[in-house]
């Protein structure tokens, strides 16, 4: 909770000044926190980077074309490294070296990708990169279930996105770019949120997978609403929304279930409303009936309902982020409405005052706004 001691000292000083704690209590808290063996995020991140760079170096070494070395030797060397790394993961687990185990899992995941590349190079396997990504996703799934580090989970999810996107662009809609983009941008948020909810439902040992998938659910909604805002609508193939609707309903039914509903009913309803607004936004873009105003209204509804959802889940920073997004989108609407006037000197001055004024007001009154929204909701 207290990222570094300086930040803690500042907080303790504020609390002491406000009369919430005494000087003795402040000293005791500070003394206790100084003794804690906290995770040094900087060192951890640098070592993770080092592991990745090392593995990329091994990939480059294997990928360099040593004609004089028989393929059998290259492959044997590669499998030796893989087996050795796998063995090291098991050894780290037996010795309860948590951090070492996570780094080795990450290294093994990257080396598996390198091995797929080597085998592809030696046997000239045809096919696209997304096929290799899909193969890698399947091979590393058990490792990701066991991993606890966010890096491994995020890397795996990037693999999923690459494999699925590649397949859709390669196989669907005959080379058309917009339709598969619509399909992907509307499906990914559903999949990631449903998967995150399912992992959350299965319990604490899958919390890293739940957190990772939910992060990507939010990230893909941001990407979807931002990218689709600049698309003109285009008719998709028949049954498109029927498929999406069924998927959304099925995943929601399984994902939300009794567990999540009983945890936080308000958040459950907010999530349903957010999903409805999001699909209304996608449908309007896809059906070709969109206009600047309708796009803006639905965009604002999606982002505002997200801010409400995160407020109900107690995630204040995400609440701030999405509310800021709402504010920025309002400004874009403002510029869209006044158009040519916006770029006159007076227009720019008024816009600048408006931006500064609203931002200052929000910063000053943020706590009251949050409390008011919490009461209302």
């Amino acid at each position, binding site marked *: 909770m207290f990222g570094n001691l300086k930040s803690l000292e500042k907080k303790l000083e504020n609390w002491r000044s406000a009369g919430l704690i005494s000087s003795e209590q402040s000293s005791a808290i500070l003394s206790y926190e100084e003794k804690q063996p906290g995770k040094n995020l900087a060192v951890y991140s640098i070592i993770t980077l080092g592991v990745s760079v090392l593995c990329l170096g091994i990939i480059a070494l294997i990928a360099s074309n040593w004609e004089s070395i028989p393929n059998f030797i290259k492959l044997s060397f590669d499998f030796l490294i893989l087996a050795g790394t796998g063995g090291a993961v098991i050894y780290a687990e037996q010795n309860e070296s948590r951090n070492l185990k996570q780094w080795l899992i990450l290294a*093994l995941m990257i080396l598996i990708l390198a091995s797929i590349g080597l085998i592809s190079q030696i046997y000239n396997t045809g096919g696209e990169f997304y096929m290799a990504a899909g193969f890698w996703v399947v091979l590393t799934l058990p490792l990701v279930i066991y991993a606890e580090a966010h890096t491994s989970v995020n890397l795996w999810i990037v693999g999923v996105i690459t494999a699925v996107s590649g397949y859709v662009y390669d196989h669907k809609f005959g080379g058309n770019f917009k339709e598969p983009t619509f399909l992907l941008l509307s499906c990914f948020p559903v999949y990631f949120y449903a998967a995150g909810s399912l992992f959350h439902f299965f319990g604490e040992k899958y919390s890293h997978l739940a957190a990772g998938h939910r992060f990507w659910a939010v990230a893909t909604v941001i990407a979807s609403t931002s990218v689709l805002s600049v698309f003109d609508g285009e008719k998709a193939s028949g049954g498109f929304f029927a498929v999406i609707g069924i998927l959304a309903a099925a995943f929601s039914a399984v994902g939300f279930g009794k567990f999540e509903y009983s945890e936080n009913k308000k958040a459950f309803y907010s999530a349903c409303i957010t999903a409805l607004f999001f699909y209304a936004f996608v449908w309007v873009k896809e059906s070709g009936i969109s206009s600047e105003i309708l796009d803006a209204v639905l965009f604002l509804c999606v982002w505002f309902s997200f801010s409400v959802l995160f407020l109900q889940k107690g995630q204040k920073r995400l609440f701030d982020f999405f509310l800021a997004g709402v504010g920025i989108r309002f400004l874009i609407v403002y510029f869209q409405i006044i158009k040519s006037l916006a770029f006159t000197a007076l227009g720019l001055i008024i816009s600048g005052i408006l931006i500064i004024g609203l931002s200052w007001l929000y910063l000053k009154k943020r706590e009251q706004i949050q409390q008011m929204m919490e009461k209302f909701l």
Partner: protein
Amino acid sequence: MRSFRFLVFAAVFPVIALMFFTVYKWNIVRAGKKIVFDIEGYDPVNILTGHYLIYQVVYKTPDPCTANYDLTSEYIYCSSPSDSSFIPAGADRTGCTVFIKGECKRGRFTAGIERYNIPEEKAEELDKKVREGKGKIQVSVSGAGEAVVEKLFFEKE
């Protein structure tokens, strides 16, 4: 806490799976039926794409996929001592000495043999040979119709 056995499985499974995949490909090269095709269609300005030579395989019979760029049907290239032809996937293959499975992609029959890995140091030599002569590939084909490119060579015209 996940079980230790699951961790052992998670660490070992990818290694075993990759070994199987390698042995599978190696067996096609070792025991598959050999067939040689002419190749053409590489970009005369920039022959290599990364470390790969991308080309079009010249089948000894008209390609059914060229009729429609958007076609994604699956076909089988059927070769016998007397002739060769393309037949729909699922059709009777008893007359085929060698058959290669593939599908239509962007107006071409694609069987996963349309590229060959080129060592960096050989790139310049390859460029010269391509311009001088006719490229050919030797392909190994398994009994299930899967093909692996064994080697690339050139004959002077």
